[in-house]
């Protein structure tokens, strides 16, 4: 107990993150790899938008909690996207490196984000399915150049193998305005009772 209390309490910062991209590029797979570290070869296409959360430790003092909105890529659900990216702190625009057209769609998403989303949104361009190198259609360098031009983070990952997935979120977390958000959330939490407070009871002494 004394051990617990002596450790500095890691501060929790919440960020909203949205995934955008053409359908079947692997948005949900990326999220699932990140959140649950699992992969499903035959994942059903998302309906509407799915919600998941995951926390990562930015440094010993600060823990970042991502509220992830995994939107459906189908055209039908396009109208939902603005609702989710409008207040997002970060956006992950995903394309499929084996589908040239998905990069085009990604570009459109980037344009839309730059126009409609909040000004300080952190956008990451992510090329998925890096494991299918032999089927590659989108040149790595080309996509990288594009990202640099637009001032975005760029990654090539594979949800299947799990390569680079953590890096995306880690890098995003580093770029996020942590301190500002912290102040904001503290103000918010000031007049609330924190039910999420870690238990002060010693686990070992629990009689149940």
């Amino acid at each position, binding site marked *: 107990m004394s051990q617990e209390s002596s450790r500095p309490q890691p501060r929790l910062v919440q960020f909203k993150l949205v995934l955008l991209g053409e359908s079947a590029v692997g948005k949900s797979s990326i999220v699932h790899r990140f959140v649950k570290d699992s992969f499903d070869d035959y994942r059903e296409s998302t309906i509407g*938008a799915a*919600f998941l959360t995951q926390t990562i430790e930015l440094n010993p003092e600060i823990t970042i909690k991502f*509220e992830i909105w995994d939107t459906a890529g189908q055209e039908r659900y396009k109208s*939902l996207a603005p*609702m989710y990216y409008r207040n997002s702190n970060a956006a992950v625009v995903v394309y499929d490196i084996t589908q040239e057209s998905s990069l085009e769609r990604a570009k459109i998403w980037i344009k839309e984000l730059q126009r409609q989303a909040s000004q300080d949104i952190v956008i990451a361009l992510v090329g998925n399915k890096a494991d299918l190198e032999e089927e590659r259609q989108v040149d790595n360098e080309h996509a990288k150049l594009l990202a640099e031009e637009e001032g975005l983070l760029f990654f090539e990952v594979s949800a299947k193998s799990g390569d680079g997935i953590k890096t995306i979120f880690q890098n995003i977390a580093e770029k996020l305005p942590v301190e500002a958000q912290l102040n904001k959330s503290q103000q918010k939490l000031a007049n609330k009772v924190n039910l999420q407070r870690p238990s002060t009871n010693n686990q070992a002494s629990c009689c149940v």
Partner: protein
Amino acid sequence: MSALKGRTLGAPREITISESKSPNLPHQNNGISKIKYLDITNGSTSPSLDDQKGITQPETPTSITLSRLDGLEDKSVPPPMSAPQLTSGFRMNNSRNVIDGDDKIDAIDVSPNLQYVADEENTNGSNKSLRLENSLQTRIECPICQELMVSLLQLNRHLDDAHNLDGDSLQISTPSRSSSGIFSSQLSPNDEIRNWLKKTNEVKTKIQTVLPKQFGKFELFNDGRTNGSTETMSTESVPEIEVTRKHWQRPAGRNICSFKGCKKQLNLKNGLVHCRKCGKLNCHEHTNFYVRLNSDADYDSEGTWCRCCQDCFQNKPGYKDIATIRDLTSDFLSKRQYSNSVKQIYENKLEQRITNLENFDEQLKKSVQRNAITVNLLKFKWNSQRYSIERQLVPWEDEKEVQNCFLCMQMFNLILRKHHCRLCGRVVCSSTETECAKDYLLSELRSLIGHPPKLEDGYSILVCKNCTSVLFQKKFLKMESNVPLPEIFSKFELQYSLKSAILNLLPILQEMIDSLQSDENLDNHKNTIKDVSKLRKKLVEYFSSYDELTRQILSLNLTTEEEKKIQLAIKKESLIFIQNNMSLLKSLPRILKKIEERNAPQQKPTISLAAVHEIKRSREELMVLNEQKFLIAEMIENCKKQRKFDEIQPLNDNLTEINENIGVLQEKLGNEGF
């Protein structure tokens, strides 16, 4: 009787004073008139005499007319037979028939002719004709006492004083009917005159009463003031129109004023008056109006004034016309065209003259160059030739008749000399203050009328302000049109052209919509709707660029007050314009929808409008939102089950957002929703 007897006047002349009666009576005039004015005219009889009788005496170049006239003359007045037979006039005349016997005016004509004797035929024994030795001496006699007078003025006064007859009552006129024409002073005792005057005075008062009667026939004029002798007057006055009384309402037992809401009992106190126009019975209060009616009791601006009720008064033509609108644009245009053409002609004339002057100048130079004489002589010759040429080309105004400069109106004098404008030829001053005329180089004038300038110097000519203003005007106009407009005006011009384009298109759109609404043929509809949407798109574009231009104008940084004022006015104008003209565009979707609804059964599959797309999209969106709402609700449930309370908060937030969106969409869709 203070007259100066036998006093001679002025130049010696023989003048006969004759009391003549005219043998012939051109008009049987019964008028009365009294001597009231003493006119001495030269060359003609007094105007008052002329006016009344139309008698002039051409044979008498100079005549002095003594006339005492009453201001009013009424032909209808019967001649007082008992009136004293006074002479119709004194005449110092050589003419045979002098004043007409019927003359009511006593006149004394003094003719300047020398050496004449009163006509023997006219002057019989009783005639008091005088022959004066001194031909230039004029003697005037009182018609009553035969006292000699020096002047007519004196006679007039004498008549007033000595015979105790003031201007109003004195009557020395002879009725013309007494053709004896004899001056009979013995027949005219004062009593008789007075008696007669009394009568005429009576008549006079009647004339006053009759006059308004003739004009208006107001009843009140007849009240009280007329007496028995009116009859003579009215019978002879202009016959008045008898307004029919056939339509008059018959008074029943109990009569009520027919004016709306009056309900007054008609009796002696309140009055029982027929409206002459409609014939209805009214009280006094509501028949206190007058209109002009003809004999059929219809409104007639020439008719007689008749009493009428308030309704008829207010229904008379022209009563309700508050104002009339008269379009004077065409008048103005024609006048302007005229003045413009006059100006143009003047301008052309000036230009022509300048060209002529130039030509002569050149010729002159050439000839001078040929004869190489000494410079001084050359100059002298040149100047003199120039002068004559200038006069030759432009007709000069005669300076002798001109006293003032026609521009500054200053009198010419030793210092202010007369000059001629070499272009219009009028006399002007060359004052340095007013600069009415200045010297201009011929080449300068040349450039003004748009000819290419020549390098060599012409001589200079004097040109008046008037001409230069005409010439410069053209130049300034040209210059002005070349200067680029300030930004605000160029923008405004653009805006204006857009506006006119919009105003041209709007009626077309309206027409299309009208045809859509009226036309039942559905095949036409398809095309028309396409056109309408095209036109609508175009109009919307125009409007937005119009708005954009307005915004640009408003964002301009202006310095002067005037420009700011203009800016404000443009702002107002464009606001009003958009408000007034956007309404059709705004209501267009609704109108189209109505048309769609009307044609719904047949039309539905064929409609391919933006509105339909919009509805489809919105429905889809709504569906998706509902799905998402369901999903989120499920998620919340799951989170609760799994005790992941920290995830519930964002989900709840999202749910409320979704609900909001759904509400907005449902409102937008209205009936088109599910």
